[in-house]
C-alpha cells in the first residue's frame, strides 16, 4: 500500500501546486494551460478514488472540450488582458478574500476529517436491482434508472445553455453558422490531424458508449469524445459549421431528450410511473436511450464549443 500512498501524495501536491498557479500566475494563457493540466491530473485522482466513470468524464469533458473552449477564448481575449490590470483589487479586499476563503476551506476540511462514521452509503441499494436491470455498471444504473429524471433534466440544462449561447449573437446573424475554422493557414498539419483522428475517435467514442452498460463508460463520455472529433474536423475546415437554423440540427438536438421522454411517458401506461421500465425490457430500453442521448450530446457539446453564430444565414 505504501507505493499507492506515495502516488497519492505526489498527485495531491501536484493538484495543489497547479491550482495555486492557476490563481497566482499573471498571464491569462498560462492560467488556461494550467487548467487543462489540472483536468488531466484530476482524471488520475478520480482513478485513485476508484471512480473510473468520473475519470473518463473528467478526461473527455473536464479537460478536453472545456480546455479547447477556454484556450480559444483566451487567445481571442488576449488584447483585453491589459485593460483589466488597472482594476486590480486593493490589499484590503485581498486580505478579506483570503480570510474568507481560508475559513471556508478550513470548514470543509473539518467536515472531511470529522466525517460521519460509519459512512452513509447507498451502494447496497444501488446493487440490489442491477440483475433486474441487466446493467452491470452501477453508475450507469444510477444515471439512467434510479435517478433517470436527473439525467433528463441535465439534458435540458445543456439545451438551455445552448439557447443562451445562441441568443448572444447579434440579430442580423441569427440562424447563421458559428465560425470555427480558420482556413488552411497552418500548412496542412491541422487538416491532417482532422482527417486522421476522427475515424479513430468515433470508434473509441462508440466503444466507450457500448461498454458503459457493464464497465466504466456511457453516453456522456462517449458523446464528448465524438463531439471533440467533430469540433476538430470543424477547426480544420474539413466540415462546414452548420447553420443553427438548419432543420437537421434542431432535430438532432431534441432527438435524445425526446426518446428519453417518450420512454418515460410510456412508463405511465405500462409499469405505472414516469421513467419506470417494464420488467425484462430495462436493458434494451436503457441502451436505446443511451444511444439517442449520445447522438444529441455530440451535437449539443459540439455547438456549445463552437459558440454563437458568426455570420448570417444568407452568406
Amino acid at each position, binding site marked *: 500500500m*505504501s*507505493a*499507492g500512498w*506515495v*502516488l497519492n501524495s*505526489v*498527485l495531491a501536491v*501536484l493538484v495543489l*501546486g497547479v491550482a495555486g*498557479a492557476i490563481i497566482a*500566475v499573471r*498571464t491569462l*494563457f*498560462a492560467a488556461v*494551460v*494550467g487548467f*487543462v*493540466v489540472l483536468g*488531466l491530473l484530476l*482524471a*488520475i485522482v478520480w*482513478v*485513485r478514488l476508484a471512480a*473510473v466513470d468520473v*475519470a*473518463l468524464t473528467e*478526461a*473527455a469533458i473536464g*479537460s*478536453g*472540450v472545456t*480546455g*479547447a*473552449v477556454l*484556450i*480559444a477564448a483566451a*487567445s481571442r481575449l488576449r*488584447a483585453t488582458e491589459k485593460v483589466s490590470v488597472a482594476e486590480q483589487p486593493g490589499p484590503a479586499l485581498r486580505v478579506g478574500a483570503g480570510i474568507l476563503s481560508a475559513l471556508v476551506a478550513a470548514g470543509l476540511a473539518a467536515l472531511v476529517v470529522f466525517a460521519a462514521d460509519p459512512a452513509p452509503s447507498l451502494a447496497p441499494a444501488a446493487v440490489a436491482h442491477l440483475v433486474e436491470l441487466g446493467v452491470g455498471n452501477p453508475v450507469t444504473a444510477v444515471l439512467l434508472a434510479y435517478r433517470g429524471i436527473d439525467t433528463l433534466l441535465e439534458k435540458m440544462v445543456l439545451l438551455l445553455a445552448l439557447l443562451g449561447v445562441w441568443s448572444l449573437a447579434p440579430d442580423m446573424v441569427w440562424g447563421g453558422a458559428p465560425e470555427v475554422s*480558420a482556413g488552411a*493557414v*497552418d500548412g496542412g*498539419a*491541422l487538416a491532417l*490531424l*482532422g482527417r486522421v*483522428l476522427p475515424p*479513430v*475517435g468515433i470508434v*473509441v467514442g462508440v466503444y*466507450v458508449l457500448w*461498454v458503459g452498460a457493464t*464497465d*466504466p463508460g456511457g453516453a456522456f*463520455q462517449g458523446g464528448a*469524445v465524438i463531439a*471533440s472529433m467533430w*469540433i*476538430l474536423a470543424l*477547426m*480544420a475546415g474539413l466540415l462546414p459549421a452548420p447553420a443553427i437554423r438548419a432543420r437537421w440540427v434542431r432535430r438532432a438536438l431534441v432527438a435524445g431528450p425526446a426518446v428519453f421522454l417518450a420512454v418515460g411517458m410510456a412508463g405511465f401506461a405500462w409499469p405505472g410511473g414516469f421513467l419506470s421500465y417494464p420488467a425484462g425490457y430495462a436493458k434494451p430500453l436503457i441502451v436505446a436511450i443511451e444511444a439517442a442521448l449520445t447522438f444529441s450530446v455530440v451535437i449539443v457539446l459540439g455547438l456549445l464549443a463552437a459558440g454563437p453564430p458568426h455570420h448570417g444565414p444568407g452568406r
Partner: protein
Amino acid sequence: MHEFLIGAASVVMAIVALGLLRVLRGPGDADRMMAAQLLGSGGIAALLLVAAGTDRPAVTDVALVLALLAAFASAAFVRHAPGPRPEDIKNT
C-alpha cells in the same frame, strides 16, 4: 511487482511535473503548450502503469481517451495562435 508499477507511475508524474515550470516561465505560449503535451504523455504512461499495478483494465480506457484528446487542446491553440491572419485582422 504491483508496488514497482505504482512506484514507477509516481516517479513519472513527479518528473513530468517539473516540466510544468515551463508553463510558469514561458516565455512563449508554445513552450507552455509543450509542457502540457509532455504532461499529457506522462499522464497516459502513469495511467497505464496504474491500470496494470491495480489490476483494473478499465483504467486503460481513460488513458485511451486522454491519448485521443491530447492533440485536441494543442489543435485549439494552433488554430488561435498569434500571428497575422487575414480573418483576424478583419474581425478585430
